[in-house]
């Protein structure tokens, strides 16, 4: 069974600085997708970024980028120029054949003014 681990329960970053959130996973599959979702206090889960395992290039969405290391089964999220609105829970997720997502336990990110 797939598992997803996020080893940082909480992180903080100064506004305008850069922060990296860690995620590792375990799977025996060769082709899969990984996602980062953001959950602000409103509870609404919002897609941040996704990565296909077969793509060598790391995905990027504006200030958000990933460092995908397939051999190490690592999928970290880098947030550049952090903004107050980035404060939220961040969840790493593994796409289990499109049937369901396996989520990590989450990292709570605080952004300090």
């Amino acid at each position, binding site marked *: 069974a797939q598992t997803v681990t996020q080893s940082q329960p909480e992180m903080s970053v100064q506004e305008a600085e850069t922060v990296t959130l860690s995620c590792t996973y375990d799977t025996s599959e060769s082709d899969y997708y990984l996602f980062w979702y953001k959950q602000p206090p409103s*509870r609404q*889960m919002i897609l941040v970024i996704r990565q296909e395992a077969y793509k060598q290039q790391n995905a990027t969405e504006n200030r958000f980028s990933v460092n995908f290391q397939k051999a190490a089964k690592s999928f970290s999220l880098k947030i550049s120029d952090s903004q107050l609105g980035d404060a939220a829970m961040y969840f790493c997720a593994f796409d289990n054949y499109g*049937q*369901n997502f396996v989520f990590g336990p989450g990292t709570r990110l605080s952004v300090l003014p």
Partner: protein
Amino acid sequence: GAGVSQSPSNKVTEKGKDVELRCDPISGHTALYWYRQSLGQGLEFLIYFQGNSAPDKSGLPSDRFSAERTGGSVSTLTIQRTQQEDSAVYLCASSPRIQALGETQYFGPGTRLLVL
């Protein structure tokens, strides 16, 4: 609607009562998912629907939990004889297709259930 909606937003009930949680997916989305998020925890997968069919119900925590979907649209998650450990946020998500690798799931705002 434009996004996934869930009702009620919050529900307080007494132990032993039954509750129904509703999910309206994005129009045209074939796949629908239910997850449970306990306080401060990650998301626990409960069940998914492909159209009106739920091929695998093994994720439901107990036989007090059931779910159905009608008309390929609205889904209801029912919890019978609620227990305090059922207190959690129940999240619904939908996606255009089922078993399509890499398909983004679009989430609703969730229903916060509190069992007293």
